[in-house]
């Protein structure tokens, strides 16, 4: 299967505030054969971002609790993912850059798992969502677009 990884641009809203931690990025990983070929990466990315209100949700410092804004974004993402069962996404969690390496890694994994649980709660099939954690290894990611065709 041809896999497409999209790190969708963050439409940088009020999220740049102080102690908020960027997390997680929802990345469409692959699309199945039934997906119209003419729908390009850019179109899909734009649609996902527009209809879910963003690709990134944020946690408080040292927190794995999904706040109301995060749940709003995830709910929109869940709705979109239910309409696109052929899309597989990976949730990438991030820790605090001021944290120690392994605790940051664990916090990123916990946050990714919390977001995944919420998507599943809203009816997204488990097989459609995987998780990973970058800990504090990618402090710059989230405000840029990365397109990887594998």
């Amino acid at each position, binding site marked *: 299967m041809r896999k497409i990884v999209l790190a969708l641009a963050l439409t940088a809203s009020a999220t740049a505030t102080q102690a908020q931690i960027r997390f997680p990025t929802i990345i469409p990983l692959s699309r199945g054969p039934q997906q119209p070929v003419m729908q390009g990466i850019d179109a899909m990315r734009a649609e996902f971002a527009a209809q879910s209100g963003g690709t990134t949700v944020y946690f408080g410092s040292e927190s794995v609790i999904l706040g109301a804004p995060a749940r709003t974004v995830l709910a929109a993402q869940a709705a979109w993912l239910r309409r696109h069962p052929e899309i597989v996404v990976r949730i990438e969690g991030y820790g605090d850059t001021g944290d120690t390496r392994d605790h940051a890694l664990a916090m990123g994994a916990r946050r990714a798992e*919390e977001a995944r649980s919420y998507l599943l709660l809203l009816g997204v099939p488990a097989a459609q969502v995987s998780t990973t954690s970058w800990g504090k290894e990618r402090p*710059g990611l989230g405000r840029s677009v990365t397109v990887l065709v594998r």
Partner: protein
Amino acid sequence: MKRFLLPFLLIGIAGPAQAQQPAATVIAVPPLTSPDGGNRGNEMLAVGWDATQLIVSDLRQTAELMPLQPNRDDYYSYPEVTAPTFSKWRSKGAKALVTGFVQSRSDGRLTVGCYVYDVEKGRELARKGFVIAPTDWRRAAHKCSGLAYTAITGAAGIFDTRIAYVAETGVGDARTKRVAVMDSDGTNHRYVTAGDAMALTPRLAPNATQLAYVSYAGGKPNVRIVDLGSKQERPLIPTDAISFAPRYSPDGSRIVFSMMQGANSDIYVVSANGGLPRRLTTSPGVDTDPSFSPDGSRIVFESDRGGSQQLYVMNADGAAQRRISFTGGWYASPEWSPDGDWIVFTQRSTAGRRIGIVKPDGSGERMLTNGPGDESPSWAPSSREILFQRADIAGRSGLYRVALDGSEPRPLTLPQGGSDPDWSGVMD
């Protein structure tokens, strides 16, 4: 893997003489001699001179010993190896003396003999001999340095040891992080992983023949084991779960590590050869960074079960978990000292990250560095120094070592940036 070092004369090593004086012990290391004659003898003397300079260089790095500058004119005969002229070294102010020889063998290898003396008392403290391939003269010299250091200070030497760390090049998304290994004096530097997948936290087996590290090769972090000789790699356990923070038991037979199950990070132990891991902690939240006590009976780790990262000690089977850090701030990445007396940790606070030590019962806490970008401490085999990672203002990371006396940390010279250092025990 034992390709070298058959101690062939290990006769009556005297008990360690205590270094009760605060000042460094002056030690003389005249050039190693040889019983061989002719051209062969000259070759052996040349190897001996190289080894002598390396011994002096090793000992100069320690806080406890101060070697005199070696002088090629201080030649002595083979019989004088075991009957040195103490008065000569007394007059030069030396309190200790190292003598030795390099002898060729019929099988093409070399015998290196090493002897340590108390100059004031005129008596032998220790002796050891090694049979080596000619290319391994550096290891024989390091072994001799360790013999002298241990005989005089009573502590384990750090000379025939290795350091593993993560070599960092590039910035941002172009950053490469791969595992590198070197001898503790910085020589013999080599890369263990290719750099195509991000690597974190290499941890050497006690004999430094293999290491465990975290690889992103499968897209998510997983503990892998790599043999340093064959370069062969395997996952520690066959699982899709995120696993990290591996560390060997002191005897090398087990590995403790963290694994995610759902949104929960707990500590597990598994045979270093693989098999079924056993879960040691069950608290919700993050339990990670486990490290064995030197006798293998207990494990120190960090947990945020109480609301913030703190240090806990438990029995090696997971029983009797109790918190040992209470003085404020957040505590992380503990490692138990090889002599068992201390636990080194990273403390997080609003002032940044610093390195400190505390006794296993929670007493005696003190800070060794000022930060603000310090973390990942690892003990020297001597238990007298700590290697750690320090980030500068630009975010570039390098390795530093600091002594327990709180003196200024010294940077290690590396070919590139470095993080996540780990210092092995003395090799066989």
